[in-house]
């Protein structure tokens, strides 16, 4: 057992702390609060360590996927929901008369929020609570699906590369103190996906819950990433709107106060079951007049490509239980494509009218490709990986793919004709493309321009720009090297990945090291504060993508370790 553990009194004994948990809270800053004793007292003796059985955990906003390294798929998947937040031994959810009062929850401002582990906006978030949730979910996974004892095991975490540090450290805190993994290695989901697809470069389109993130990976390194708030949550909200619109107007005045007329659970269910996505319409010009309405598109959906001609607009009956009075709703099948249309494409608006954070998917993909240097783009565009919950929306992947290829056909990769300075400012495409154009030419000079609109993206973005000069020189080498071994590039192509979890399982199984490896003792002593920022490690690192140095230092546990890309901010 570690020295501090031995010397420190047992937490249980010290009454003062128990009496006022909050009061104790003040001690938090102190790196060696006696109460740390407990964690380090757990089975530190290495004899108690499980024979290398590495546990892989993929963190999502709504679910946790857990399994053993080397397995093709996770053992268990825990979704977060209000029922998990009850006290132990509270079985009310099983009482026949009990119904979760979602209206109250909705009134409390959480319509669906209680189905999320965390929100990326950590302002005012109770991080301790996040830790508790993770712990409980993990415990359930361990006992129910993995059937493992509580000997300390090494862990590999798969995280979205945009995860805010407070959340990450909250997670690390609770896991380190409750499960005592000797080390936790961090992997970014896009990398895991790339490996899971068998490629070295890819454009990962993660149609996630809280947002859609397009990450370009080049030679196993994230060289660029852009995101849009158009994600699963928005889709469910849209579905709710759709259903609400079709509900009979006899809604009952008492409910007008309510923003939501249906429960999140139900809308979510209907979304996953019934919502689909229109194929791209050949007939439609790429930029419709901004006054065209979503409803307009409905009519000509029969002549959509990829749909069998014989399709009639048969109505679909959807039972609704959570409405004031349980009923069943008749919808034209095509109406069920609206939510997807509005969420991900909004094609009735001209593409210039969107802010950076709310770009429609096809523009998002196109632009993130555009931002890439030519050679990188060539590789990425033929290695597009769709992932995330919304990739299950039937037809969505194809739609995005087609839209993007259409834009490419129309404009190629040339910068749009920009005129005037203010337009230069307002139209993001403009400077982006110009930058790319330049970079393709002479490289680094692009940085100056780039910094203009980097605000949305955290560190990674800048790296993206900065990495540009590096690939170029050896890309010629590459070309020379591979002419005998042709690499598919330059053409739009989507490939299938096993998924982030399985990718990570592969990586771990092959004993490749992670972006960052956090040592338990080190963490418990210093916490996130102890993590040396990649920049501090060496200045090259900053210029490297992925907050490099994470790997090298991290593996040398103890000394100077980083949080990899997550430490980059």
């Amino acid at each position, binding site marked *: 057992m570690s020295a501090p553990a031995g010397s420190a009194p047992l937490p249980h004994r010290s009454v003062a702390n128990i009496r006022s948990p909050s009061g104790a809270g003040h001690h938090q800053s102190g790196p060696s609060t006696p109460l740390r004793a407990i964690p380090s007292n757990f089975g530190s003796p290495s004899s108690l360590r499980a024979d290398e059985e590495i546990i892989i955990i993929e963190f999502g906003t709504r679910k946790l996927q857990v399994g053993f390294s080397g397995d093709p798929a996770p053992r268990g998947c825990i979704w977060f929901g209000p029922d998990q937040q009850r006290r132990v031994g509270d*079985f009310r959810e*099983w009482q026949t008369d009990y119904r979760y009062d979602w209206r109250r929850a909705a009134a409390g401002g959480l319509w669906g929020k209680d189905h999320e582990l965390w929100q990326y906006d950590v302002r005012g978030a109770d991080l301790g609570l996040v830790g508790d949730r993770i712990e409980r979910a993990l415990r359930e996974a361990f006992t129910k699906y993995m059937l493992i004892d509580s000997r300390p095991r090494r862990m590999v975490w798969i995280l979205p590369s945009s995860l805010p540090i407070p959340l990450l450290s909250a997670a690390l805190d609770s896991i380190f103190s409750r499960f005592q993994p000797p080390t936790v290695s961090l992997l970014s989901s896009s990398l895991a996906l790339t490996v899971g697809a068998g490629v070295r470069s890819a454009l990962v389109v993660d149609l996630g819950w809280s947002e859609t993130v397009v990450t370009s990976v080049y030679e196993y390194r994230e060289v660029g990433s852009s995101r849009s708030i158009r994600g699963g949550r928005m889709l469910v909200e849209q579905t709710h709107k759709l259903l609400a619109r079709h509900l009979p107007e006899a809604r009952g005045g008492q409910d007008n106060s309510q923003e939501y007329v249906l429960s999140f659970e139900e809308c979510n269910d209907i979304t996953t079951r019934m919502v689909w996505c229109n194929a791209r319409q050949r007939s439609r010009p790429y930029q419709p007049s901004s006054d065209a309405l979503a409803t307009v598109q409905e009519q000509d959906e029969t002549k959509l490509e990829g749909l069998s001609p014989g399709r009639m607009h048969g109505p679909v009956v959807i039972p609704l239980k959570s409405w004031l009075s349980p009923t069943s709703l008749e919808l034209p099948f095509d109406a069920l494509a609206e939510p997807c249309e509005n969420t991900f494409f909004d094609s009735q608006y001209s593409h210039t009218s969107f802010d950076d954070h709310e770009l429609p998917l096809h523009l998002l993909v196109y632009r993130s490709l555009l931002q890439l240097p030519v050679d990188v783009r060539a590789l990425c565009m033929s290695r597009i990986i769709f992932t995330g919950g919304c990739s299950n929306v039937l037809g969505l992947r194809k739609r995005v793919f087609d839209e993007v290829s259409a834009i490419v056909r129309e404009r190629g990769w040339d910068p749009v004709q920009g005129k005037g300075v203010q337009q230069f400012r307002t139209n993001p495409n403009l400077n982006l493309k110009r930058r790319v154009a330049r970079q393709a030419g002479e490289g680094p000079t692009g940085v100056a321009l780039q910094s203009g609109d980097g605000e949305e993206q955290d560190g990674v973005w800048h790296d993206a720009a900065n990495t540009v000069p590096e690939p170029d020189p050896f890309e010629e080498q590459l070309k020379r090297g591979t002419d005998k071994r042709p690499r598919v590039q330059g053409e739009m192509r989507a490939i299938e990945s096993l998924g982030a979890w399985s990718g990570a399982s592969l990586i771990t199984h092959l004993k490749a090291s992670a972006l960052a490896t956090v040592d338990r003792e080190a963490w418990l002593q210093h916490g996130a504060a102890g993590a040396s920022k990649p920049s501090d490690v060496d200045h090259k690192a900053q210029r490297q993508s992925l907050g490099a140095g994470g790997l090298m230092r991290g593996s040398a546990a103890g000394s100077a370790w980083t949080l990899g890309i997550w430490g980059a901010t």
Partner: protein
Amino acid sequence: MSRRPPRGEYIETDTGNKVARKATLVGTQNIMLGGKTVIQPEVMIRGDLIRTIQASSQSASGAPPNNTAVSIGRYCFLSRGCCLRPPGRLYKGTFTYMPLRMGDHVFVGPGSVIQAASVGSHVHIGTNVVVGEFAIIKDYVRILDGTVVPPNMVIPSLSIVAGQPARLIGEVPEGGHEAFELRDLYKTVGNNPQPAPS
């Protein structure tokens, strides 16, 4: 014995069983009570549904001892309005009932219908529970109110089940075993009941 002038709502047998006069016991000769068992009013036990597979010749009248249809252990508590009946099924082409066996310290909540093949000891069955035919319930099992245990389901020891159909929702914690003890409850009913301990 029910001929005797009613002296209270319960018949108390010499083995300590307390059987409400308002209980409906059909085919009592096929019902075995282990003793100290409480049968509240409006309970129904179908002792007449005996297994016929081995010798279909014998009718319910000439009852050999092996003819037990329902056997109940000690300190069981059958609440008002519950119903115990042997499960029946097609076996090799012919239909037969099979005996329903119940261990000790089994609490059956009001309005529940039990058609299990066997119920272990220290089992708590809540209110309005339906236990399907040939279900097997092991020891120290808690079945929450309104649960529907589907036919043929096996519920392992120390489980907490609920739902329609029943599913495992938890395990009985180490400290929870004593709660299944029914001796105290036994005393609280009868012709001269004593109040429950605080």
